[in-house]
């Protein structure tokens, strides 16, 4: 069975008044059926832009998807999301790919009822009558854990708490049983206890519906309890991809090592200063010609400043885009 989603060499740029911003510079990854892929990286690393490029959700005329393929398998056939006609991509959005946004407070229309907003998605994609859509909506509300779902159909968003609104957003996203659910930092705006509930909910729904999930976050703690595989992004490129345990136990990219080093640990008896990664992310307006992490990398050597590292296999299902072999403590290829 082909992967649900195969992204190949995606390049997205923004043409702004300040110059061209190289937001995504050749990102490739696969999402298998039923798996949860977490995409981590700091702000501006291109996580969200990558996902929004796939569904062509970025508004405005400044965005250019320069190259790349996004092969999406909807069970019966494979289509390239980047080449679909506007009418076809609309069928994919919400129908086969659900999207949950970061901020549930602004993602719901304040003047429409919860019920209207969920049924909208159903009516757009499924050939159901309005009473049927209402029935399905109430079912969905119950499924995402809204108590007293039938009476909540006519509630307005402001009558819901942040966590409940995010549940509603999830209900909208899964309304048409999508193959793939993209969650763009869905827990960032919520407090920690609600975060845990939302993570649990998505995992449960994933099992029930057999969806694949892409979970974008910068919270490595959430990732550990959630993902099968992790993809670490830096400056619009994939730094490292690995199964979740491998990534935490044997990080192979200096950036990942830096990220993990910056996490506070509960199991250390003596508290020590958290390590930070020196420097700041590169200016994305400069076209990348070398490893973008070289500015901050403790292992950087000549080759890092000369070319862009490709992803190399460093273990089973484990790839890193780095010229330096951290394990052996020497550059790869003996150079």
């Amino acid at each position, binding site marked *: 069975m082909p992967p649900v989603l195969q992204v190949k060499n995606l390049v997205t740029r923004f043409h702004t008044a300040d110059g061209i911003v190289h937001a995504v510079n050749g990102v490739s990854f696969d999402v298998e059926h039923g798996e949860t892929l977490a995409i981590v990286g700091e702000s501006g690393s291109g996580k969200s832009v990558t996902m929004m490029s796939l*569904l062509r*959700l970025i*508004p405005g005329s400044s965005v250019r998807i320069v190259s790349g393929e996004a092969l999406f398998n909807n069970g019966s056939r494979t289509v390239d999301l980047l080449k679909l006609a506007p009418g076809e991509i*609309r*069928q*994919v*959005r*919400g*129908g086969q790919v*659900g*999207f949950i*946004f970061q*901020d549930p*407070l*602004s*993602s*719901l*229309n*304040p*003047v*429409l009822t919860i019920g209207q*907003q969920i049924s*909208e*998605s159903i009516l*757009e*994609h499924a050939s159901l009558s309005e009473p049927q859509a209402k029935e399905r909506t109430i079912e969905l509300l119950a499924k995402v*854990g*809204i*108590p*007293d779902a039938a*009476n*909540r159909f*006519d*509630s*307005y968003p*402001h*009558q819901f*708490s942040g966590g*409940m609104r995010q549940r509603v*957003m999830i209900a*909208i*996203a899964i*309304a048409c049983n999508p193959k793939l659910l993209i969650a763009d930092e869905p827990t960032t705006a919520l407090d920690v*206890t*609600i975060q*845990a*509930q939302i*993570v*649990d909910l998505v*995992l449960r729904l994933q099992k029930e519906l057999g969806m694949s999930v892409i979970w974008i976050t910068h919270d490595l703690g959430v990732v550990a*309890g959630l993902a099968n595989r992790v993809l670490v992004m830096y400056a619009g490129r994939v730094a490292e991809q690995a199964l979740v345990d491998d990534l935490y136990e044997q990080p192979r990219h200096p950036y990942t090592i830096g990220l993990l080093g910056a996490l506070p640990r509960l199991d250390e008896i003596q508290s020590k200063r958290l390590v930070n990664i020196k420097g700041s992310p590169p200016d994305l307006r400069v076209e990348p010609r070398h490893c973008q992490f070289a500015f901050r990398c403790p292992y950087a050597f000549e080759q890092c400043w000369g070319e862009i590292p490709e992803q190399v296999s460093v273990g089973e299902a484990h790839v890193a885009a780095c010229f330096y072999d951290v394990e052996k403590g020497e550059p790869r290829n003996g150079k």
Partner: protein
Amino acid sequence: MNNPVAALPQSKLEEAPPSRWQTFSRLFLRDKTGLFGLFLFGLVVFAAIFAPVLAPHDPLEQDLKVSRLPPAWMEKGNWDYPLGTDKNGRDLFSRVLYGSRVSLTVGFFGVLISGGIGLLVGLIAGYVRGKVDTVIMTVINVILALPYLLFVVVIAGVLGRSLLNVILIFGVTDSPIFARVTRGEVLRLRESGFVESAISIGASRWRILFDHILPNLIGPLLTVATFEMSAMIFYEAGLGFLGLSVPPQVPSWGNMLEAGRQYITIYPWISTLPGVAIVICSLGMNLMGDWLRDVLDPRLRRAKN
């Protein structure tokens, strides 16, 4: 992951939300100034609808034997003419009652026309943006930059004095206000999170425009509409005073103000009474406008709860 948090009591969530009518009536009764505004406006509407029943005389009927009578409670007053008479002996009370018809008609249809044009133009400008927006906004700015009164005087002079012309003039000259408010709101709304999420579930442009953006415009536009309606009633009176509104024999508050102007020191009531009517009407509308905005905007409603 077994989550203890999920077991927290959710009693508050289980209360049935108040129905729309309950919310509406509760807000209505609580806001005393809004209630007062509605009362004043209701008074004017009542007068307009039942003018033929309430008026003791035909508003056009002249009787020079009783010209310039003071209101009934004053010396030489007469309960046949409760608020007195003007120089032609027409009953002021009846004329004030009938005057409300002119004012409300101008206000209502003026707002309907300017609101309709403004909404359409504003939606296009805000949603399409680009060159279309630039052209529309330039035209709007030109209209707004014209000296308003001069503009109205010229049009009124060219078209002649009639109720329809007054409505058309207000309908056109006031539409930039609605267009601007609409455009601004659309610009804000089209970038909002819920439009983004509507796109992400595959909604079409029309669906976004009509199902998501339009309902959000009703509150702000209705508020603008009440204030503009009150302004139009004001301006109509002003035009009447300048002799540019409806023909002089038609009982309108502006015409009555004008008719009483030359007697203001000797027979002050002839001008004062229509003036009081104008104040009642526009005060009522302004208070009601504030109240409507509160009730119609769910975000503000929440803040007040």
